[in-house]
């Protein structure tokens, strides 16, 4: 569903990604883990078009998308829930969710009725969002904002979802809730690339995992194998 080969990208003259390759098969959850500054966020940004790759290929459902504007890639079915959540603070919770479905909805009128079923589904997943649907997204707590960011990505009915550190800065109970949600989405068949610092939990939900070091994939494999890998044990799971 998502195939990345030999991706190079960076900021200005400094190259951060020096040939990253990874694959996310349809219906699987793939974890991308690694130390702070390894280049995980940069990888996601280069895939979704927020950052223009300097070299390499990104195939979304078989179609090359590298170099396209982020909005085009999003309309082709990639939903990227970015690091730091980036909800639309001055807009209401419900407007945030509706805009998540922008690619599928009529631009002028009737969009609310068309989105009703998907809204219900997100509200069922995150009941707290329903309670706060009229509230400005900027007034939500960090955990609620994260749920909104995930819900907004779901509204797109994407082919692939990229989640960048959904647990960042959240209290342990909320982190558990986020992982429960990810597990449930996986059961429903969502294809997902998950970036996490919590390597143990990420390996717990993933079907496959990549470990990134200084802009390259250093280790990859099934979670069960990675758990036995000595380099992994030393660096990430100790």
């Amino acid at each position, binding site marked *: 569903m998502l195939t990345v080969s030999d991706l190079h990208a960076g900021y200005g003259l400094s190259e951060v990604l020096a040939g990253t390759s990874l694959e996310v098969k349809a219906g699987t959850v793939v974890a991308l883990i690694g130390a702070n500054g390894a280049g995980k966020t940069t990888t996601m940004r280069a895939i*979704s*078009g*927020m950052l223009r790759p300097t070299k390499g290929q990104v195939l979304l459902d078989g179609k090359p998308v590298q170099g396209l*504007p*982020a*909005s*085009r890639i*999003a*309309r082709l079915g990639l*939903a*990227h829930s*970015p690091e730091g959540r*980036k*909800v*639309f*603070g*001055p*807009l209401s919770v419900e*407007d945030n969710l*509706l*805009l*998540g479905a*922008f*690619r599928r*909805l*009529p*631009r*002028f*009128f009737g*969009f609310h009725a068309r989105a009703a079923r998907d809204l219900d589904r997100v509200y069922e997943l995150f009941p707290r969002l329903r309670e706060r649907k009229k509230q400005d997204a900027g007034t939500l707590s960090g955990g609620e904002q994260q749920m909104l960011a995930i819900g*907004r990505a779901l509204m*797109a009915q994407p082919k692939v979802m990229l989640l960048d550190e959904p647990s960042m800065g959240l209290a342990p109970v909320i982190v558990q809730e986020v992982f429960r949600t990810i597990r449930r989405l996986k059961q429903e068949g969502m294809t997902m690339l998950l970036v996490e610092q919590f390597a143990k939990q990420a390996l717990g939900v993933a079907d496959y995992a990549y470990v990134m070091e200084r802009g390259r994939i250093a280790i990859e494999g099934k979670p069960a194998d990675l758990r036995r890998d000595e380099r992994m044990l030393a660096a990430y799971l100790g």
Partner: protein
Amino acid sequence: MTLSIIAQMTVSGSLMGLVYALIAYGFQLTYATSKSVNFGQGELVMVSAFVSLTLITLGLPYWLVVLGGLFFGALLGLFVERAGVRLALEQRSEGWILLTIILGLLFFSVAENVWGRDDRPFPTPISQQPIHILAVDVTPVELSVAVGVFAIMGAIEIFKRQTLLGKAFDAVSADRDAGELMGISATQTVKLSYALSGVVAAVAGILVSPITTVGPTMASALVLKAFSVAVVAGLESGFGVVVVGMFLGALESIASFYLGSGWREAPGLVLLILALAIRPTGVFGKTLIRKV
């Protein structure tokens, strides 16, 4: 007696002030999506008014003149975005300031060459005969300014609140990158905002011209006051520009009555200086207007 004169001046002045408010509203539209404004907005008002005048002399019915004027305004807005703003924004530079000023100068000399330097009357089917309401005389043309300004601002506000595209407009102004991730093209949204601000400029031109006449120099006089209004009201609140615009219009008309018409421009300038000195962020908005 003086009270009724003041009432008269306040009413006709504040109706005129709505035109300043509308032009300032045009600044707000593009600032929201791109953090840029067209410093040549006054020339857009003037050129659209001249184009509408040409359509009138061609004998088109008034509604078609209005439609044609608005359409042309939208095209001019798109042109300014393409030629003056987009490249600068892509480079994350502030080159748009200089470029939009230069485009304004260009429009000015084009207008001088195409339509001449003289001020010309702008015929309108709306009556110029004053009608007496309570203690003041207003002409239907003056009233049409209020109707037109509230109609176009109301339509745009409804668009922003009730349609998904309008919400996307707000989303881009809140977080451009996140908007892109939802599939909302920031470039298209900025284009739309410039087209809308061109439409708004054309409406201002068509509404004000029957009162002031049309001429190349109308641009600078109008845009300076619109700036005063935008600086005082801030670049976020549509309600703010209406209030401040009406206030400034009334002040102007009272000043020119009591102090002489040479003083007409003074309140706008004083207001601008005071506003920049006291509250560089605007009375009604929180945006920092660091670029102005």
